[in-house]
């Protein structure tokens, strides 16, 4: 296999990556320097959000946590705060700040002592993110809304930049002219701007159901099917291995949303 990769080094990087990816995808090459899909069953996430409606302005605050991997560790946590402005009937723009811990990045796949490889424990690594968001929305009939979220994310801790494009459709069940519950189907596409070897580093659909208990309280249940592409970590490259590894997982989530209007 080392010989094979040696010849590959003379080829363009993209070609090498493509071939390596194909080898991985077909299961021909599965080295211990490559992260493995630890997912057995779904991950679980929960969030509580305070989303205030101030007319053309909305404030956003949420706290989210996720239990991940085979051990269902409570790993990822985040707090997001920001505001949106309705610039046009069909367009909201916003700016958000996020403090997160437990996020996993490509270089977190580490060589430990000996031949052991493992993901870094990032639970105590706090990261600061800044996000700009623009979301056009359009009515489709009386009860449907089509939207396309476009978000730029800048991770100020590691300088990684991401563009999220998330087209989706929401259908509202109306009772007495007001929504009682709504069902949303979205497809998220995360594009890396300055890291990794795969431009599309994460993607997948998610389905969410939101029940309007009252004007103030809503509950949500959602399920995501995420495909994340891991690129070679610094340690793996140093060890002479490169890879593109797809990690697929299902995430089930619940949330409580407080939505006061003023």
């Amino acid at each position, binding site marked *: 296999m080392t010989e094979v990769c040696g010849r590959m080094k003379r080829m363009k990087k993209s070609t090498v990556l493509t071939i390596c990816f194909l080898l991985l995808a077909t299961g021909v090459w599965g080295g211990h320097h490559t992260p493995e899909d630890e997912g057995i069953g779904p991950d679980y996430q929960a969030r509580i959000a305070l989303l205030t409606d101030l007319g053309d302005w909305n404030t956003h605050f949420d706290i989210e946590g996720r239990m991940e991997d085979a051990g269902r560790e409570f790993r990822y946590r985040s707090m997001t705060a920001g505001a949106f402005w309705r610039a046009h009937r069909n367009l909201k723009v916003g700016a958000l700040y996020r403090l997160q811990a437990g996020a996993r990045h490509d270089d977190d796949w580490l060589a430990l002592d000996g031949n052991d490889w493992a993901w870094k424990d990032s639970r105590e690594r706090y990261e600061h993110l800044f996000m700009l968001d623009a979301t056009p929305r359009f009515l489709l009939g009386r009860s449907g*809304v089509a939207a396309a979220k476009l978000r730029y994310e800048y991770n100020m801790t590691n300088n990684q930049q991401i563009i999220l494009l998330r087209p989706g459709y929401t259908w509202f069940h109306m009772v007495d002219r007001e929504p009682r519950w709504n069902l949303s189907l979205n497809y998220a596409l995360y594009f890396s701007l300055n890291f990794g070897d795969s431009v599309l580093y994460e993607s997948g659909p998610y389905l969410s159901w939101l029940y309007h208990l009252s004007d103030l309280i809503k509950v949500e249940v959602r399920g995501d099917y995420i495909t994340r592409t891991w690129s070679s970590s610094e340690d793996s490259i140093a060890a002479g291995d490169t890879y593109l590894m797809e990690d697929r997982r299902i995430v089930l989530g619940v949330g409580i949303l407080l939505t006061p209007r003023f």
Partner: protein
Amino acid sequence: MLMKSPVFLLLLFFTVAAIPAAADKGSIVYAEGEVLVKRGSRTLSGEIGSDLHPGDLVRTGPGALAVLELGERGQVKLRELTELSLDSLGTRTSVTLNRGGLFSRIKRLFGTEAYEVKTPSAVAGVRGTEFFVAYGRKIEDEYDVWLCVNEGAVEVVLPAEGASVIVEEGEGINILGGNRLTDPKFYPWTKDLNWNMEPDRGNIKDETDLDAAYSDLLDQDYD
């Protein structure tokens, strides 16, 4: 736009003795923009001070408004694009709102005195002193009718359905398609209503967008 379906009555009842007779005529006490008074086959320009009589039809044009004195019953304010028929004035004052929106500020009634607001889409009875009635969207066969109370309490009754509800101060309801009552509750959009009818006390024009009374699905986003 003039709707001619079943009559929708908004009645004010106060059960206290003594009966001072109310004058059997009204007048325009304030007007802005185009205000017309249709009397029989004649159409008159509605000016401040113009007398009003039973049978008159008062219309406001785009951007216009009018405040009417209804004898001793009280005052009403017509929003723009409103048409109000003065069916009777006096002890029992009755008006019909054919389109648009109407604010009513009614003085305390005594004995057999009554104040009625009718709309063509349903039948209801109310009690109260200051309330707002307006047509909303036409989503079903008939228009929705919004009613909200600023002062006092309003009893809305739909005899055909055998339904009734008390709307308390600060609450509103929607008469869906003119024949179904929603539960009374506070609607944030009603905070924008301009209840003032006295020009000396500032702006009296109400420019509330009735579309705000409906859930804006484009504003329903949660992530």
